[in-house]
């Protein structure tokens, strides 16, 4: 069986501007994204769940998502669940900091020493959770690929560059939204599978990111293969 499409963990920070703990969430998320697990993580700005499009709201359905909040309001965890999908795990900075014996966090604009320590503690915990959900240390080209933009798929255009493609397909007379179809197609092409052999690979990988009703699997396979054929033809014509 060819390799499945690599998944990345999503990290959503509350970034709460009013509290020093909000600054901790932001800096801890950035530390994981840029230093600790750059190949295995992506992020999205929390407000995009409301202000963005379908591709943004699909984020937590596509990525196993870890939320990190500064306080017990848990805006990131609850907002993600309300508008995108249930987070795979959640961290609350002030609870974690207390548990780890970190002192009083202060300085929303410029963190004090306890705040900096809280950033490290939170980032480490985030990295552990990332490893738990998507594995550790994958640094191949495949793991660092982003979701491709196609004419057919709607994606986010935010500065966090985290949009998930959403493609509409007509399946058995009904319009169905599928996540990450261009990504699955691109990986299928890289596997160099002949069109007649691609059906099983495509369906299995589409199932990673979408629910495929068992009774409708044959219809999904037919529609996905048809779309894949069109995708390949478009690539060849460029």
């Amino acid at each position: 069986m060819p390799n499945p499409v690599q998944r990345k963990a999503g990290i959503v920070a509350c970034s709460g501007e009013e509290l020093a703990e909000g600054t901790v969430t932001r800096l801890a998320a950035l530390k994981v994204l840029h230093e600790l697990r750059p190949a295995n993580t992506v992020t999205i700005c929390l407000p995009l769940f409301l202000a963005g499009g379908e591709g943004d709201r699909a984020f937590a359905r596509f990525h196993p998502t870890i939320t990190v909040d500064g306080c017990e309001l848990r805006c990131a965890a609850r907002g993600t669940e309300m508008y995108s999908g249930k987070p795979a795990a959640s961290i609350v900075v002030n609870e974690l900091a207390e548990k780890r014996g970190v002192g009083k966090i202060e300085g929303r604009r410029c963190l004090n020493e306890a705040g900096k320590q809280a950033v490290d503690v939170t980032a480490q915990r985030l990295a552990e959770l990332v490893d738990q959900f998507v594995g550790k240390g994958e640094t191949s080209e495949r793991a660092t690929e982003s979701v491709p933009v196609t004419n057919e798929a709607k994606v986010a255009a935010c500065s966090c560059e985290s949009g998930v493609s959403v493609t509409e397909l007509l399946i058995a007379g009904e319009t169905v939204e599928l996540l990450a179809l261009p990504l699955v197609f691109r990986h299928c092409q890289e596997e160099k599978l002949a069109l007649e052999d691609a059906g099983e690979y495509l369906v299995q990988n589409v199932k990673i990111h979408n629910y495929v009703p068992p009774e409708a699997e044959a219809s999904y396979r037919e529609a996905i293969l048809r779309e894949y054929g069109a995708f390949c033809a478009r690539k060849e014509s460029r």
Partner: protein
Amino acid sequence: MNSTKVPVIPCSGIGKSLGSVTREAAYELCDTLRPDRTQLVALSKLVLGEEQARERVRSGLSVTIDGCKQMCAAKLVKHSGGKIAREVAVFEVFRRYKELKPEGIAELNAAGKQLAGALAEEIAAYIDEISEGGSHA
């Protein structure tokens, strides 16, 4: 809470430097330049629909500061039933200060901080105008 304070809402952008500029500008404005006339409101609370935060943006005219074209802060204030005195888009402001190219996200470079400072000064002047009965509102 002083209800006469102008709510200031930066965008929380975490992907690029311009998002960090919005945050830095909001802190410069609310903590240093006009602490008596402004109040920072966390955008995440508006995402959640937290009632106190919604009330704050409904109680008067707000200033929003956004880092990208999605304009999350402006959209969320409107979504919460608030009205906006001034929608600031940092990428537009940057066009007027091209020598101040922001870099870094977790830690903004000096140019980014200067851009944030210039932006905060502009908003402070605007807030003075509307607070003193100017015609912008």
